[in-house]
């Protein structure tokens, strides 16, 4: 009985629209990521004192975790065997990443593009080590799920050009469910950790987050005029995140909750200059729960 209910929950019947949103969104994310680092790419990832922090040091530390985690050093080694130098291979890695982003955006060769984007971004994340932050983890999560998801979706070039179509595949609903549950974990633990810090209750953390370089976009004087709002804003964010796993599923609150979460991320992009971070969170939320806005209730989807 329990197994049956679990199966019903994990394999709802869904359209592949959410996969199109994830593919298109991650394509856009990869393109913006690559373009934003275009001028500094080699400086961030070079070895032998040519970069800001030697890639060799980062990759040596990564090897302590495991020697099997992808890294740009593999690409450079391969280039060396073909007679290409490090600069050329790093540039090629960057161009390949941008190319996978463009392919994903268009939906051309979806599966190979998704896997290549996932591996190339993993390599950059692994070799970047000390210069990576939250956005890289979320990009890995998104690209990992996209690489596993049933592809191509009906809006892709693959479907238009080659007539490749997904059948009514039980995996479409399953993979969306996994993404939905993962987002619930992300917000629940994010909210819980914040609730445990005194600074989020008295507004200190909001003040620090908004005045801390390099996130200090809003002038502190302007922020000061709203200092009595900061505690409420801090508690509101904690509750928004902590309550996500419950209120995103309730029919009466799901739309409002998703809208507020999206607004929170857009607010972070504007107020803290974290556009890449905001973009990936908006994409993951829309892919997971965006169907709420089209009036397709989660309760109906569950059956």
């Amino acid at each position: 009985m329990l197994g049956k209910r679990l199966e019903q929950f994990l394999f709802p019947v869904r359209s592949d629209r959410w996969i199109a949103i994830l593919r298109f969104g991650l394509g856009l994310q990869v393109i913006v990521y690559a373009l934003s680092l275009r001028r500094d790419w080699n400086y961030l990832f070079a070895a032998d004192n040519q970069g800001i922090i030697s890639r060799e040091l980062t990759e040596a530390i990564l090897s302590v975790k495991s020697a099997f985690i992808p890294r740009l050093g593999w690409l450079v080694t391969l280039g060396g065997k073909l007679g290409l130098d490090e600069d050329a291979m790093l540039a090629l890695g960057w161009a390949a990443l941008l190319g996978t982003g463009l392919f994903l955006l268009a939906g051309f060769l979806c599966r190979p593009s998704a896997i290549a984007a996932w591996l190339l971004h993993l390599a950059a994340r692994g070799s970047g080590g000390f210069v990576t932050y939250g956005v890289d983890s979320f990009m890995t999560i998104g690209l990992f799920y996209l690489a596993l998801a049933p592809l191509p979706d009906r809006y892709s070039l693959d479907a238009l050009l080659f007539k490749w179509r997904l059948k009514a595949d039980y995996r479409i609903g399953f993979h969306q469910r996994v993404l939905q549950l993962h987002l619930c974990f992300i917000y629940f633990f994010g909210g819980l950790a914040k609730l445990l810090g005194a600074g989020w209750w008295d507004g200190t953390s909001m003040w620090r987050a908004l005045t801390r370089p390099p996130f200090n976009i809003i002038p502190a004087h302007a922020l000061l005029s709203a200092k009595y709002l900061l505690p409420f804003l801090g508690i509101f964010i904690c509750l928004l995140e902590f309550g996500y796993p419950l209120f995103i599923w309730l029919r009466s609150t799901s739309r409002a909750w998703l809208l507020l979460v999206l607004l929170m991320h857009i607010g972070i992009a504007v107020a803290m200059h974290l556009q890449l971070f905001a973009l990936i969170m908006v994409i993951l939320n829309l892919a997971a729960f965006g169907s709420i806005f089209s009036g397709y209730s989660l309760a109906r989807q569950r059956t």
Partner: protein
Amino acid sequence: MRRKQFLILWCLAHFFLISVVCWRDTLSVIGRGYTFLPGFVGTYSRSAESTLSVLLGERLSSSNPLRQLVSVYTYTSGIDAGYGFFAPNVPENYKLVFEIHYPDGRVEYELPRVSSTAAGLRLSTLIDNIGGTPYDELREVMVKMMAYSVWQEHSEATLIRAVLGLVLLPTPNEFQRGIRESYQFTYAYDFRFPGASAGTKQP
């Protein structure tokens, strides 16, 4: 049917790992006393965190295949760390300044720099990682690498001094009283390129 069973098993294993990693990180911040919870909770948290680390294979030798498998899987699926960004409190941040000393006694000051805002954010993360690392040797090596890239643009300099400081932000009330951002000295390193292979640390 068998495919569905396989997917269910994968799903259970996947979320088991996510839960363990998330609880481990949450318990870690409690155990280190970063929350408002009473001290005795921290003792239990450290013990529970240790147990969860066992579940992730972190007590096994680094070459153990099970530990390798878990490490690679969690890393490549992006579930190797929890999601407590800016939590439980917004962390301290650091500033790195280079003093460039020339043979004629001139001294110039320079901040590490990159070309774009996106890379600037990563640079800031790097400096925070350097300031936050508990390993003195690693910190020195990383600062030396950054100092070397500065020296490459000022190769006539005789000495590059790297000064790492903690940024002290005023509270809203302090800011209202006119107190502004200040810096607390943490480390300084002197480097000569080419020449001395190691820097001289000034605590």
